[in-house]
């Protein structure tokens, strides 16, 4: 039954963001812009050591600084001093031990941020410094001091698929490394906590998941969840880095203690310490294949460094393991993936979530295989590409389109760009490093698979309320959800779906907060699917109520009819909606229908490399991605362009440099992300092969392009240079070193 009407700005159109003009005017209120009468400022004292015992904390001198309102330590945590996204193992404020450099130890509130910082420096913490555990493989195999009660293995996922210990005519092996990447969202961690007279607190915050924050904060504060009310404020990007708590509990503690509104804003250096990063990885791969390039088996061992606390390491491990052979048919799979505790910075969610690391390894292996059997890199991928009906290494049957061959063909068949003749087209760009001499061109490919939504038996749902009323003679729908807008354009998509479902032009999006049920996280490319699904269901309920009043069910709605039927009534429907269930992976074999949906993207990268100086210019990136249904085609392009840029960053420049557990480059001076001069023009094909199980047939969009751009770019550099390049980011010295 189709009862929708085509209206302006519905699904499939390029509706504009409702917050675009405010943002362009500088009037959009981000969490760091908030202000409150009588507001004071909070700051965080952090551990300078990656691993140390705390022998004493003395706050006497800090309290004497004029203007200081409160100085708090672990003794002041009102509830349970332990939290965690999946697994509570992290103190709100360190007690007897610190496990990473930057771990919060104490808090100060004062009337000026500089006063708070000065008082913070007067807190005396005595540390007994311990040798840090920094080797991932030692941590995985019991060769390091246990940092937590149950040892250092957060999770070990084994995937055993098909006959084991098979042999093949052609064998290629490789060891690969991925450095620690930072989300580098531009809006720093920040929020405003406002205490209420009844001992409750309101927190205005930039986050990815209001209810997960609320649950963790409430436990730490020793309050029932309803006494911790969260409202989303403007979010300056997220990319996974806001899925864990940063200053949430701290600001609430200071507000409840001082009785005043407390604002906390990290600076960029503190931001590098204040959120989780992408897991660095070390990966050992062996591919066996026939002489004509058909994969016979894949064996892999993947080590992911989870750092000091678990965060979402368990789920990242499951992704790397279950997606570890890529979008290929592989009859025999033996994958072991470990996520471990070390004294490195905690790692957790970042766009691509475990799939990024594995893809760098398996795609590098595909190129080695192509070389070994004398095939073109696209051809070897096509020969092994999965399609609808394929069986994943988990035994799960892929029951919706998997157009891997089509994506690869699309990017391969695009015309190649001409050689540049402008200086800015050259490696080194405006830096005058070459005018074309010593420059070699290379072309490379990458293809990705990513699960959409939460997997592994997680109860993944969203809640949406839709209210339909007539205001000033006009039908107005308002949408309320706790699903978080972080910049990706969820607010636009919610308006589009509502317009399409209800035939109403005016759709208001209410503030996102915890006064409505959980919507799950803005992560895993899931919100358009899950909250979009919930919204469609809520709109259907509203429509049903309307039809009941009209007395029939099969006519298109139109605005005037709604106004006439509704009068002064309000239709108000709340729906909790979940996608089909997923199942827990078998702990011994990794078998199970663990994922709800797969998404695919392919990239072709063209690079020019100055082989003399080691400089890389990415000349062009071509991407093809299947999105099932493009709810907002322009926004889809924006996701592909932005995701691709982050993959480019990982390929050639981005890495948090660690030395003995310490971050050596916590600034945008030393942690480089791509500028407009680094990002080339893109050519993009968007496929719409509907997934019959998903709302509108859509697929999650955000993550796949981040995954496949990195291996494509590195493959192109290899093609230009002949270097092995088994580690990202690739730096000039890796290209020019003698092999």
């Amino acid at each position: 039954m189709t009862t929708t009407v085509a209206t302006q700005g519905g699904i499939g159109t390029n509706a504009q963001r409702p917050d675009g003009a405010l943002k362009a005017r500088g009037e959009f209120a981000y969490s760091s812009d908030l202000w409150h009468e009588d507001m004071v400022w909070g700051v965080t004292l952090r551990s300078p050591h990656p691993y140390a015992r705390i022998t004493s904390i003395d706050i006497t001198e800090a309290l004497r600084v004029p203007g200081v309102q409160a100085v708090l330590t672990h003794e002041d945590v009102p509830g349970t001093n332990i939290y965690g996204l999946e697994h509570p193992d992290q103190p709100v404020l360190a007690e007897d031990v610190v496990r990473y450099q930057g771990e919060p130890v104490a808090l100060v509130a004062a009337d000026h941020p500089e006063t708070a910082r000065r008082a913070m420096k007067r807190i005396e913490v005595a540390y007994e410094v311990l040798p840090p555990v920094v080797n991932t493989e030692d941590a995985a195999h019991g060769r390091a001091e246990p940092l937590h009660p149950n040892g250092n293995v957060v999770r070990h996922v084994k995937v055993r698929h098909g006959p084991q210990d098979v042999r093949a005519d052609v064998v290629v092996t490789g060891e690969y490394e991925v450095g620690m990447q930072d989300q580098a969202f531009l809006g720093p961690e920040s929020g405003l906590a406002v205490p209420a007279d009844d001992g409750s607190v309101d927190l205005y915050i930039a986050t990815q998941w209001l209810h997960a924050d609320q649950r963790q904060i409430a436990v730490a504060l020793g309050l029932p969840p309803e006494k911790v009310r969260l409202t989303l404020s403007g979010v300056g990007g997220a990319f996974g880095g806001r899925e864990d708590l940063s200053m949430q509990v701290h600001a609430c503690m200071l507000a409840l203690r001082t009785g005043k509104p407390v604002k906390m804003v990290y600076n960029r250096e503190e931001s590098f310490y204040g959120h989780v990063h992408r897991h660095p990885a070390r990966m050992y791969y062996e591919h066996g294949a026939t002489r004509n390039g058909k994969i016979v088996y894949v064996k892999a061992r993947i080590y992911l460094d989870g750092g000091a606390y678990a965060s979402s390491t368990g789920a990242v491990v499951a992704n790397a393991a279950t997606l570890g052979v890529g979008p290929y048919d592989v009859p025999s799979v033996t994958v072991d993936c470990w996520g471990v505790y070390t004294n490195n910075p905690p790692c957790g969610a970042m766009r691509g979530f475990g799939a990024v690391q594995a893809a760098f390894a398996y795609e590098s292996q595909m190129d080695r295989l192509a070389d070994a059997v004398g095939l073109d890199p696209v051809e070897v991928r096509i020969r092994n590409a999965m399609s609808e009906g394929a069986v994943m290494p988990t035994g799960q049957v892929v029951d919706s389109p998997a157009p891997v061959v089509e994506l690869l063909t699309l990017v391969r068949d695009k015309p190649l760009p001409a050689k540049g003749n402008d200086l800015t087209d050259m490696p080194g760009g405006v830096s005058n490093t070459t005018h074309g001499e010593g420059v070699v061109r290379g072309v490379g490919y990458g293809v990705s698979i990513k699960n959409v939504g939460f997997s592994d038996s997680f109860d993944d749902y969203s809640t949406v309320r839709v209210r339909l009323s007539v205001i000033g003679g006009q039908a107005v729908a308002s949408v309320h959800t706790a699903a978080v807008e972080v910049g990706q354009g969820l607010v636009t998509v919610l308006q589009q779906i509502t317009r399409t479902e209800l035939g109403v032009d005016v759709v208001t999006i209410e503030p996102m907060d915890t006064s409505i049920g959980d919507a799950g996280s803005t992560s895993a490319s899931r919100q358009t699917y899950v909250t979009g699904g919930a919204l469609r269901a809520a709109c259907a309920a509203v429509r049903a109520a309307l039809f009941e009043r009209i007395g029939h069910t099969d006519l298109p709605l139109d605005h005037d009819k709604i106004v006439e039927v509704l009068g002064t009534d309000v239709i108000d429907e709340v729906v909790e909606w979940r996608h089909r269930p997923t199942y827990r992976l078998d702990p011994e074999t990794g078998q199970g229908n663990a994922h709800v949906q797969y998404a695919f993207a392919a990239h072709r990268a063209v690079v020019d490399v100055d082989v003399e100086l080691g400089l890389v210019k990415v000349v062009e990136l071509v991407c093809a991605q299947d999105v099932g249904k493009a709810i907002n085609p322009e926004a889809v392009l924006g996701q592909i362009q932005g995701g691709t840029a982050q993959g480019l960053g990982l390929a050639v420049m981005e890495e948090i440099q660690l030395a003995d557990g310490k971050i050596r480059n916590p600034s945008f001076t030393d942690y480089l992300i791509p500028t407009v001069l680094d990002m080339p023009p893109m050519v993009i094909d968007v496929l719409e092969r509907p997934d019959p199980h998903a709302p509108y047939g859509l697929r999650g969009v955000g993550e796949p392009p981040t995954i496949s751009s990195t291996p494509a770019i590195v493959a192109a550099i290899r093609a230009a240079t002949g270097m092995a390049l088994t580690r990202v980011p690739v730096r000039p010295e890796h290209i020019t070193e003698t092999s």
Partner: protein
Amino acid sequence: MKSFAYVSARDVPTAVSAIAGSPNAKFLGGGTNLVDLMRGNIEQPDTIVDITRLPLTGVDLLPDGGVRIGALVRNSHLAAHPLIRSRYPVLSQAILLGASAQLRNMATVGGNLLQRTRCLYFYDTAAACNKRAPGSGCDAIGGFNRNHAILGVSDNCLATHPSDMCVALAMLDATVEVESTRGVRRIPMNEFHVLPGDTPHVETSLAADELVTAVELPSVAVAANSRYRKVRDRASYAFALVSVAAALEVTGTTVTQVRLALGGVSAKPWRATKAEEVLLGAPATEESFRQAAAAELAAATARPGNEFKIGLAERTIVAVLRELVTKGDAA
């Protein structure tokens, strides 16, 4: 950030007397480096003398064909100045390859001369750094030192000077004019910055109470065939791994004039005099260029983290000289 007094000076005598009376005072020019360092508690002056209103903003042709540049000329203004673009293209190029447009709009010539190193350990107040805290040690030695110096290093410091502009000034034999209550003196550019030795916290030959008032460029005919190249990790807005400023004149097939300076490799802009000696009078061939580069880098001392810079510097020198030969031919 420590508290400090803020004084705004309207003329040079006021500025130099203000600082003469305050041993821990600092001049504030564009502020693009000092404000950041103060915020990080790396610089902790008790008095700031704001000199941005001093009348040191001229770019003037001198009777001998040289150019005098006021210390408060903004980097963007200098790079765009017709006198600089036509006579010293290498200086324009070097400035434009530093920082971003917004920073070049604020940064001054004097401030660029005096900017501090970008060593990661210098910026980390929890780390040992002989430059920031004399006698505390150097965590860069044995630490993460990929960006660090390979020429003129000591056992006390591996820091590099981060400026691009200064590399061009060193190549051009500029002179720095400074003033204090004791009077005016002139310091040759290649003596302005000093190597770390046992006192890495001493970075220049400027006395604590001296104000940089101007930079003078001599008339350098060969500068018309000059080039600045910068090798870095990102296409823009990143400090040099290695940079080269060079000017070359070839008569027939022989090098008759050459000037060469390196950036990103030392605590000072590194005038490559050994390479210049090898090149002068030598045939303008790839082979000579390689020999010259190797001669200059023979004295390099690297750590495993920055060993690549030796080869990179050599290849960059060769590449820029090769280009200048071609360019000279065309011209």
